[in-house]
């Protein structure tokens, strides 16, 4: 009996060493570090570190704390039995081509998806996409296909012709997407990214720094990747790739999805009498109505046939750098952009889990990434509310 217990104990310890070693390897490869670099960080030889990655040797907790910092991963990552599949993220990491800054953002994105997955598991629910449709298209008809599927998708989602007020909510609730927002440096040229896995569904990352209109356009664009390219598992939308077919069809889709041509024409007709009279102020009003950026609206008006603004006017408008100033002059505030990194569903699941006693107060602090003393206040308020 005791021999059996010893054997189980031994196996359990061995499993931990293998698991920790495996996670160390994944975390190291994701950030493109060599075993030499990591062993140097720990002050040990490479063969010894290699044994740790292979589960042949134990690593001390002190060293795990050190490497958690080094790899920008939470301690839990190295010990948890179930983590989300890394295949999509591995692809994203590969696409960074060694850009450490972007790799760090992907690590954080992966962490957020993992937490969302944990919350689903804790609440015993699984948010998966509805029936996935096949969006085949002809590569020679990108504009036609992108716009056609945008209209088709709006119909399927029951969106009618009106502008989509809360795009996040629509995509979260009707499409089962998990949408996160993080600061992505402007100079990285990354607008957003997308990953798909059968177990976690579609996950989208949008730049928290972008303007309201830009965030919405990026979101519709990444949604297009989910529809057209989810079999690729991971896509990063780089500015440098904007002329590739994948990015172009996603742009055509996003433009029509947010600004349905017929609706734009109707509104234009009813508010602007003569095409030659179109002012920047008119474009701002239209952009705000459809919830897009000034630039996206200018392009749309120019792309519609017959053109609602000619090429010269388009160029003039695009060149304008005084849109913000003009907004101030005419008293039209820029719409409020999303400022939270988590989807609303994430908060709901967190509160639900807490109210049902499925997570502790300290776990709320982990999920919401707030200091524990603040989580204690949140916990107190939630308990008060549930008593009332």
């Amino acid at each position: 009996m005791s021999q059996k217990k010893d054997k189980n104990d031994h196996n359990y310890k061995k499993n931990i060493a293998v698991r920790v070693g495996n996670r160390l390897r994944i975390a190291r490869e994701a950030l493109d570090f060599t075993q030499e670099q990591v062993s140097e960080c720990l002050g040990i030889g490479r063969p010894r570190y290699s044994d740790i990655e292979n589960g042949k040797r134990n690593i001390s907790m002190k060293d795990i704390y050190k490497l958690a910092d080094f790899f920008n991963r939470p301690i839990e990552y190295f010990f948890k039995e179930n983590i989300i599949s890394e295949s999509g993220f591995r692809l994203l990491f590969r696409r960074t081509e060694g850009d450490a800054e972007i790799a760090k953002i992907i690590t954080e994105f992966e962490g957020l998806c993992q937490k969302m997955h944990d919350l689903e598991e804790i609440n015993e629910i699984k948010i998966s996409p509805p029936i996935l449709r096949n969006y085949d298209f002809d590569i020679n008809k990108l504009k036609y296909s992108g716009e056609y599927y945008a209209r088709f998708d709006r119909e399927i989602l029951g969106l009618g012709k009106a502008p989509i007020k809360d795009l996040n909510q629509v995509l979260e609730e009707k499409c089962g997407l998990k949408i996160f927002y993080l600061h992505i440096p402007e100079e990285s040229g990354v607008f957003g990214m997308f990953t798909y896995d059968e177990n976690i569904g579609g996950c989208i990352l949008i730049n928290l720094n972008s303007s309201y209109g830009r965030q919405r356009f990026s979101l519709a664009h990444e949604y297009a990747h989910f529809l057209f390219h989810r079999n690729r598992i991971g896509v990063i939308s780089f500015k440098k790739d904007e002329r590739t077919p994948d990015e172009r069809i996603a742009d055509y889709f996003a433009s029509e999805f947010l600004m349905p041509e017929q609706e734009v024409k109707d509104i234009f007709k009813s508010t602007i009498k003569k095409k030659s009279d179109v002012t920047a102020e008119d474009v701002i009003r239209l952009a705000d109505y459809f919830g897009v950026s000034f630039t996206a609206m200018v392009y749309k008006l120019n792309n519609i046939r017959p053109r609602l603004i000619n090429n010269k006017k388009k160029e003039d408008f695009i060149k304008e750098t005084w849109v913000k100033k003009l907004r101030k002059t005419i008293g039209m505030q820029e719409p409020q952009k999303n400022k939270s990194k988590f989807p609303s569903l994430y908060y709901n699941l967190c509160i639900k889990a807490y109210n049902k006693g499925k997570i502790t107060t300290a776990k709320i602090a982990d999920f919401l990434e707030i200091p524990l003393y603040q989580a204690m206040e949140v916990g107190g308020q939630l308990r008060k509310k549930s008593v009332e």
Partner: protein
Amino acid sequence: MNQLTLFNKQLVVFDAMVLINFHGLYAFDKLTAWTHGELVVESIVRGEAKRSKAGEIDYERYISDGAIIEKCLETEEHQTLFSYYLNKKIKGTTINKGEAVCLALAISEDFGIASDEKVVRQEFSRRCPGNICVHSWGIVDMAISLNLISKRDGDDMKRGFYYV
């Protein structure tokens, strides 16, 4: 210094919420005096209880004068238990890494535990019956019974705690 302490020289691992509760009421000096040399803080817990609503917690001062003992998970047994509690729900509740650390350290070293999470205390009592297992209120009650604080002041303190 031969002063009266709460735990009779037994080491007790403190969870972050207890530390925050006392510090938030400007009673950290009192707590560390009552538990001088008995209060164990693990480094993950220290990271979680960096501050309270009363400001930053200056552990170094208490560690250097021997009031707080800082410990780190070190042994294979610590690691095994830590991993176990990170992956296991206790009575249907998922605990966080700081709580898992406290359980791992207290169980494997046969210390006591001070935690404001009921599931953590229940699990500890199940694993180590007879060991010290208290929450913030309990600590104040012990201090009252040892005349380290008046009943009135103790009751005021208990009312001020966030959560037990």
